[in-house]
C-alpha cells in the first residue's frame, strides 16, 4: 500500500440553523483554512471529493453549488458521494492508493436545518414498500435498537445518561460544538422521552456545518508538515436494508470493517489511544465499542455527534477530529468511525497512526 496521510483538518462551527450562508459560503472559509494551514494552493490539489445529500437540501444535484467554493475553473478532477463525506474520504484514499495523484481535498457539507420537518423527509430514505408507508418517527428505529440493547442487558438508561453527560462535558472544550455543558446524570434522566428509551439528550442535535480534510501521499505528505496522521487501514461494510432481518443489538458490519482495517493497519481498534465514533444516539456508543473491541480507549474526546450532528459532514468530522489528535501529538494511534442509514446500517472504520507503515 501507498503511504497516505491526513495532513490538515478544518471545520465550521455546527449551527442549529445557518440562514446567512449558502453552501459555498459555509465551505469556502473552511477550505481556505485547511489548505492554508499546510501552505497548499488550490492548483496543487489533484483530486476533490465531497459528500452531501439532496434529501437534506431539497433539490437535485444540490452539491454542485459547493463547487463555487472549490473553484471549478480551470476544470478540476472531482467526485461526489450522496452520503456522509467519510465515504468521500474513502474514495479519495483509494484514488491516492491508485497513484493517480499526490494531494486530495475531501469536504463534507451537511445542512440538517433546511427541511422544515425532517419527519417529512427521512421516511423517503427507507424502503418504500414496507417501511416508508408506516411513517415511523425519525428516531423510532433508533428507539427499537436502544430498547433491544437494554433488554439484552448491554446497557441501561443510566449508562446512556452517563455517556450523554461525558460527551456534553467534553464538548465544552470544543469551540465547534453546537451543544455542550456540565449536566448531571439525574438531570439527563429527567428530560422527556423522544422515542423510548431515548430521551432528549440521547439524540444528537441536527445542525449545519462543513468539514475539510487534506490527504497527501508519501513525500508530499512529509513535505507538508512535521507530523502526519497516516491512514494505516480503512474499510466499510454494509448490512441488509430491512432492519427486521438484523439483530439490532450487534453491528456485524462494524466488526468486519474493523477486522479488515486492522489487517491493513497492522494494529487493531483495541490498540488506539482515542476513538471518534459517529454516534447519532447515545446507545450507539456501547454497541460500537463492543463491535470494535474498544476497552480503555478514550471515546469522543471532541464531544462527538451528541454535541452536534451536521448530517452528512458528521462522519468526516470524526475522521478529522481523530486525525487532529495525532497531528497535534496528543495521540499516537486513533480510530474514526462513520455511519450511514438507519440503526447503523452501513459502517466505516479508519485506523490512523503518527507512524507510517514500516
Amino acid at each position, binding site marked *: 500500500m501507498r503511504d497516505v496521510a491526513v495532513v490538515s483538518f478544518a471545520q465550521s462551527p455546527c449551527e442549529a440553523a*445557518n*440562514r*446567512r*450562508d*449558502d*453552501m*459555498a*459560503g459555509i465551505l*469556502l472559509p473552511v477550505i*481556505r483554512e485547511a489548505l492554508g494551514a499546510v501552505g497548499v494552493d*488550490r492548483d496543487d490539489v489533484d483530486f476533490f471529493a465531497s459528500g452531501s445529500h439532496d434529501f437534506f*437540501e*431539497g*433539490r437535485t444535484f444540490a452539491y454542485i453549488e459547493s463547487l*463555487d*467554493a472549490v*473553484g*471549478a*475553473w480551470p476544470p478540476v478532477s472531482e467526485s461526489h458521494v450522496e452520503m456522509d463525506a467519510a465515504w468521500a474520504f474513502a474514495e479519495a484514499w483509494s484514488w491516492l492508493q491508485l497513484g493517480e495523484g499526490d494531494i486530495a481535498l475531501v469536504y463534507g457539507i451537511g*445542512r440538517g*436545518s*433546511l*427541511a*422544515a*420537518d425532517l419527519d*417529512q*423527509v427521512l*421516511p*423517503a430514505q427507507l424502503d*418504500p*414498500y414496507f417501511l*416508508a*408507508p408506516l411513517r415511523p418517527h425519525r428516531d423510532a428505529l433508533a428507539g427499537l435498537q436502544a430498547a433491544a440493547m437494554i433488554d439484552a442487558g448491554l446497557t441501561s438508561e443510566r449508562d446512556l445518561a452517563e455517556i450523554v453527560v461525558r460527551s456534553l462535558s467534553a464538548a465544552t472544550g470544543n469551540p465547534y460544538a453546537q451543544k455542550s455543558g456540565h449536566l448531571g446524570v439525574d438531570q439527563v434522566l429527567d428530560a422527556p422521552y423522544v422515542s423510548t428509551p431515548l430521551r432528549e439528550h440521547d439524540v444528537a442535535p441536527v445542525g449545519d456545518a462543513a468539514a475539510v480534510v487534506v490527504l497527501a501521499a508519501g513525500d508530499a505528505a512529509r513535505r507538508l508538515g512535521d507530523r502526519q496522521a497516516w491512514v494505516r487501514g480503512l474499510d466499510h461494510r454494509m448490512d441488509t436494508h430491512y432492519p427486521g432481518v438484523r439483530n439490532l443489538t450487534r453491528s456485524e458490519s462494524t466488526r468486519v470493517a474493523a477486522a479488515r482495517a486492522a489487517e491493513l493497519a497492522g494494529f487493531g481498534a483495541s490498540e488506539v489511544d482515542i476513538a471518534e465514533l459517529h454516534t447519532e444516539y447515545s446507545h450507539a456508543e456501547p454497541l460500537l465499542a463492543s463491535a470494535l473491541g474498544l476497552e480503555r480507549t478514550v471515546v469522543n474526546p471532541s464531544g462527538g455527534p451528541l454535541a452536534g450532528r451536521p448530517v452528512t459532514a458528521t462522519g468526516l468530522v470524526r475522521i478529522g477530529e481523530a486525525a487532529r489528535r495525532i497531528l497535534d501529538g496528543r495521540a499516537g494511534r486513533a480510530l474514526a468511525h462513520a455511519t450511514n442509514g438507519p440503526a447503523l446500517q452501513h459502517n466505516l472504520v479508519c485506523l490512523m497512526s503518527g507512524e507510517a507503515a514500516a
Partner: protein
Amino acid sequence: MREPASEPSVLREPASEPSVLREPASEPSAPTLPEPLTTMASPFRMDYTYVAGTGRSVFLRGLAEGRMLARRCPACAQVYLPPPEFCSRCLSRLDEPFELDGRGVISTFCVVSFPFPGQVHEPPYVVAHIQVEGSGTRLMHLVREVDPADVRIGMEVEPVWAGEDERENSLTSIRHYRPAGDEYA
C-alpha cells in the same frame, strides 16, 4: 417537492403475460406467477427553507428595486451578472456591487416551440443569453416584442421591467428583453 405521479407507468403490469416465463404446454399443472402489484399510494410532501446566501441576496434585492447589480473580482477583474459572493475563477470575494443599465446584445438564443406541462409562456418564444454591456458573464432571459424569426445573435436588446408595484426579489422583475437600438426605435 416530490408530488406523487398520478399514473406511475413504471409499476404498470405488462399488457400480456411475458411469454418467456410460460411453462411448456405439455405440463398441465403449470404454476402461475403471482399477480404483481401495480400501484400503492405513499404520497410525500416536503417543505424546505432555501438559503440564498449573501451574494445572491445582493442581486435579488436589487431586482426588487429595479436595479441590476453587478460585481467585479478584485483579483482577476471578471465582472459577474448575476454576481455570486466569490469569484468562481480565483475564489476572491467580489467588490461592492455597482449598477448596470442592463442593455446588451444577444450572444446566443433558441426558440422554444414545444408545449410541455407547467409551461408558463405560450410557445413559440425566445430564450436567450444576453451579454449585458459592462458584464463579463451572460444573463439568461426571454426575448419578446419581436417575431422569433427576426431574432439574431448580436442583436441589441434592452430589459423591460415589471411595474414598480410588481417587482420582487426575482428575475421575473424583468418581464423580458426586447430589441433596442435604431432599427426598432
